[in-house]
């Protein structure tokens, strides 16, 4: 709908401006605060105008905090999450769409459920599993009564232990268990003509060749879209890295940023440095969005279909 009434244009413009101020205001304050000195904040008040201390503050992030190593952690987590999600989603969508499996509908429903049950609401059970990945096997031994027999024979029941807490694997794996990527690939595969797979079969290509020669090249931009989306999601994760990492050197940058606040009550946080840190940490996803915007938009459009 294109309206041409002048009054309507003015109102619409005003609404847009209010919205922009609402969103950009805090970002502006982040920027200006990051350019002021600690003393400026101590004197009180918000930094309404930029200062000249940004370089100083940013340098302190690199020299006085663990943000650099934590950014490396973030990178590993985001990259690992994105890569594993891409591979896993691609393969599971391939199976769901191109093979006649009786329980495919059930499998797909279960995958969709992960979208409706995000990690944030199952963080406690996920933590329990991560603290001992083998606990289900222990439980199985207990339930079947096998452990009683083993305890009688060897003097002690089987208690397997493998904790992935505070490891990169532990940070990544629960993030990968998310169905959006599978859904995205499934929707894409279903737009391909059904005869394509038949033509490949007639040409003598088996399931694997079809996957590698036909499907993979066709899915390139979907891979890029999903990779960017998942990378951004992994980089900005907060809750899971917060509970799953216990040492500062294992924490991700977003968690590290929050930890820059002083622990003791009453102390005024070094807001300029924290805000400079926020800018440094968000520069990576910002750069990514700037460079790969094309794929990001495509991915968002696809996942909404």
């Amino acid at each position: 709908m294109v309206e041409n009434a002048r009054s309507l244009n003015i109102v619409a413009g005003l609404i847009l401006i209010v919205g922009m101020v609402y969103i950009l205001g805090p970002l502006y304050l982040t920027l200006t605060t990051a350019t002021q000195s600690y003393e400026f904040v101590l004197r009180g008040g918000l930094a309404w105008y930029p200062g000249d201390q940004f370089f100083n503050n940013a340098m302190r992030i690199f020299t006085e905090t663990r943000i650099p190593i934590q950014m490396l952690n973030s990178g590993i987590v985001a990259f690992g999450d994105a890569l594993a999600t891409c591979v896993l989603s691609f393969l599971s969508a391939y199976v769901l769409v191109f093979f006649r499996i009786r329980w495919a509908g059930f499998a797909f429903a279960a995958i969709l459920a992960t979208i409706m049950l995000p990690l944030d609401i199952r963080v406690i059970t996920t933590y329990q599993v991560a603290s001992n990945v083998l606990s289900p096997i222990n439980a199985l031994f207990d339930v079947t009564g096998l452990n009683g027999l083993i305890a009688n024979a060897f003097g002690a029941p089987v208690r397997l232990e493998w904790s992935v807490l505070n490891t990169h694997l532990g940070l990544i794996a629960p993030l990968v268990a998310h169905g959006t990527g599978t859904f995205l690939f499934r929707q894409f595969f279903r737009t391909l003509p059904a005869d394509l797979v038949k033509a490949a079969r007639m040409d003598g290509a088996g399931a694997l060749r079809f996957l590698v020669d036909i499907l993979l090249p066709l899915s390139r931009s979907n891979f890029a879209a999903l990779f960017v989306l998942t990378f951004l999601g992994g980089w900005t994760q907060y809750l899971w890295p917060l509970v799953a990492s216990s040492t500062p050197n294992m924490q991700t940058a977003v968690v590290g940023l929050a930890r820059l606040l002083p622990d003791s009550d009453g102390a005024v946080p070094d807001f300029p440095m924290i805000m400079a840190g926020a800018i440094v940490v968000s520069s990576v996803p910002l750069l990514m969005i700037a460079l790969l915007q094309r794929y990001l938009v495509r991915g968002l459009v696809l996942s909404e279909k």
Partner: protein
Amino acid sequence: MNAIDTAIRAAASSITLAGISKSYDEGAVVIPPLDAELRAGEFTVVLGPSGCGKSTLLQMIAGLERVSAGRILIGGREVQDLEPKHRGIAMVFQNYALYPHMSVFDNMAYSLKVAGMAKAERIERVNAVAAMLGLAGLLERKPGQLSGGQRQRVAIGRAIVREPGVLLFDEPLSNLDAQLRHDMRIELAELHRRIGATTVFVTHDQVEAMTLADRILILNKGRIEQFATPREIYHSPASVFVAGFIGAPPMNLLPVKGDGAVLRLADGRAVAECRLSGAFQLGIRPEDVLLADAPAADAVRATVRYREDLGSHSVLSAGLDADTGLRIATPFGFDPGSAGEVFLRLPSDKLHLFDAETGRAIPKRLQQ
């Protein structure tokens, strides 16, 4: 003639369908047991209305659908349990199904590459086929940059580059516009004359069937209604279904009763002589109905309902009574006069009689 023509001609194999059937788990029978023999080098068109099982039949020959029972022999070899690639066949799909990310060359060479053919030989083969189909200048293009007709030719090239014993077509012309469809039909006929591959061509378009086929296999609800040359199909249809399916406009069908001397319409008027008695369907082609000038003893009176002028001729729709009518092909612009009455004569040598109950044709020699 070049190497690829002769290779395909030499590879052409016969197809024998021995009692093959297809049914699904839920008990729905798509194709009841069916027998047919397709000769080597023959162009067979499988024709039928939507949902008659013709695509299923083709996919079973191709190996894309499993047969529920029966045997398929290609070139005397049992193939019903083999993968498509081991059957010596190739297929052209309705929407071409070209690989969108590959160039025309790669599309055509893909099956050869999968089969492990050496690169030099691949290039030679693809170039020969491309030259034959007029695709030589387009080998570097992607399918998205081609017109509908060119894509169609690439799809055909992709099929024949493997020198298959059997070439399968699944409604390949239905996505093209009328003019292009006409051109491609002629191209296909020429190609078949040139390479002589055994061809099975599925369509619901009777014009394609009549013009392309050596023999037409007419399917209805999975059963073979008739398997014969286009000429036979048109001039002696084996059943009411075939009679009503072929021809534009299709054959007129009138319910009649025989009393041992003449065939009478429901209102008792005699329309033709015949020694048979019982209930029949009388069939006559619109172009076989003759118009008499004046009321005559052997002519039937009919009222003209409307006239369609088609340029080359006109088609009259005439009513014999309130329920039954027939269509008559007349010279262009025929004027039935102000009364709108015509007198029709149905020549007995042009009549087709079908059993009213089974719908099967009654042989000519029994009708006299």
